[in-house]
């Protein structure tokens, strides 16, 4: 019995480390991608327009002869920046709202819950598209849109967790002995909500990649000639019949990154959340 339980746990650890390794690789590429790239992302090889993958261009060339491998490497930073920034921002705003609402209760909570309920009636991607269309295409619009679409569900999740924590004896005790609200929140409530936040954040990062590249694909994201993967997919789509590699490769890059974040999130949940252990 213990042996079986151990292999089970070991299997789960594999997911965590595989996810971390995959995401880590992407982070590394984001940092040094431009030095690894064999060509400049804007450099044109006019003899190789829409060229299929070969020795000179490992992943082929696009409609104006740019090296797709180099563009994917350099473009990693856009996708990761959107994922990272939007998740950090959404977690900060969502956690603040959730902590305040869940801890103080009463009218404050009613206001937070009311706002969250309102925003939850807008489908996430529709909210993101609407905001991106208002703010305008580009990196800022992309991050604002992705962040805004994640805040409501984070606030609701964290508020729920805080409501549970608030009833714990140590929190009640801290309040009874006269600790200030800020101190109780920072010293006792926050640390206990962190697990939920970390797990959700890593799963959301995968979602952020999904939303970010979708907006890019729709022409609402980072604008060309920047080598953002979603934008590249949108452009490559026109050449699906003659140069399918322009669609296949960016898609694989996106999917593997999401896969990595999903593995990491599931792995973290298994490792950190005792309730998920069978």
């Amino acid at each position: 019995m213990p042996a079986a339980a151990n292999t089970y746990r070991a299997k789960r650890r594999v997911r965590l480390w595989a996810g971390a390794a995959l995401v880590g690789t992407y982070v590394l590429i984001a940092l040094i991608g431009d030095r690894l790239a064999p060509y400049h992302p804007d450099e044109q090889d006019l003899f190789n327009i829409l060229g299929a993958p070969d020795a000179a261009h490992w992943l082929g060339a696009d409609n104006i002869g740019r090296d797709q491998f180099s563009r994917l490497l350099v473009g990693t930073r856009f996708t990761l920046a959107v994922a990272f920034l939007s998740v950090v921002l959404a977690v900060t705003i969502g956690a603040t709202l959730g902590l305040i609402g869940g801890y103080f209760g009463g009218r404050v909570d009613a206001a937070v819950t009311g706002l969250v309920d309102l925003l939850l009636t807008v489908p996430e991607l529709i909210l993101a598209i609407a905001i991106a269309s208002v703010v305008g295409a580009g990196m800022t619009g992309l991050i604002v849109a992705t962040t805004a679409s994640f805040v409501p569900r984070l606030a609701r999740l964290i508020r729920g967790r805080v409501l549970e924590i608030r009833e714990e004896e140590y929190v009640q005790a801290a309040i009874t002995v006269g600790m200030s609200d800020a101190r109780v929140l920072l010293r006792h409530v926050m640390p206990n909500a962190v697990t939920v936040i970390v797990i959700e954040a890593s799963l959301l990062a995968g979602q952020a990649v999904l939303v970010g590249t979708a907006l890019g694909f729709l022409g609402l994201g980072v604008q060309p000639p920047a080598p953002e993967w979603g934008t590249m997919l949108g452009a490559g789509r026109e050449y699906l019949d003659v140069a399918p590699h322009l669609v296949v490769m960016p898609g694989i890059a996106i999917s593997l990154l999401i896969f990595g974040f999903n593995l990491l999130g599931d792995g973290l949940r298994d490792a950190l959340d005792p309730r998920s252990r069978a």
Partner: protein
Amino acid sequence: MPVISFVALRVLRIVPIAFGVVTIIFLIFKAVPGDQATLMVGATATQAEIDAMRVRLGLDRPILEQYVSHMFGLVQGDFGWSSTFRGNPLPYILARLPATLALMLSAIALTIVIGVPAGVVAAVHHDRWIDHLLTGFVVALLAVPNFWLGLMLVAVLAVQMGWLPSHGFEGPASLIMPTLALAARLIALVARMTRGVMLEELRKDYVRTARAKGLEGRTIVVRHVLRNAMIPTVTVIGLQMGYLLGGSTVVERIFAWPGVGDLLLNAIGMRDYTLVQGIVVVYVAGFMLINLVVEGLYLLINPRLRHA
């Protein structure tokens, strides 16, 4: 009777929420940078044309007055002046609804037909090769963006094989690829949920009792276990309605499917913010209605909730 009172209660509760969210949408679209009238008439317009457009859009009035007349308009089905349709866009938005609904419904149908049996098969063959295969499939599907899946389907089934039309609406065959692209994520989620719940249910006492009674394995699974496993499955589908609405816009764009999402993206391209805003309002109204229906369904299949 309780179902009716439930619906009445919910409809009453929806009114203030609808009011609030429409207000938020109004405010979001007030934040469009630059002058909307200038955007809509184009760069070559004269000042007189811009002024005329400003009056037509009501932009010459104070914002509070704009808001009040906007809200009154919405209630009466007047969504404002759209440059694309040179008038109230609501009838045109509604005309696009059936195509979007058809896509969503066929995605849900496909999810039930594939996702539920896949989850059952995986659970019944727990930890055997078919379980691992299906679980691997689920993990892969959850990592693939629907727009990429859609394009890959086009590349293989339309461009390479020539089996299916690559875009537009040319009969039922046109529905196949958009449905697959939209449903993939949902199928994965439902299969995973069904598998998990089935595994839990299969360990329960009533299953052992049924076996002891001499019931056949298939009968136990289909008649007893699956029934209990359906509730979480319906919940998963219900929770993914927002994904279906949002995802349909992307999928419609890929396949030039003549639905609301396609109209939305065209409207953004034309900078017709009246139309964009109107479509968002229609989406939100639809989403609220769908959620109401899902809750009602949930009540129907889960008798325990009826008395709560």
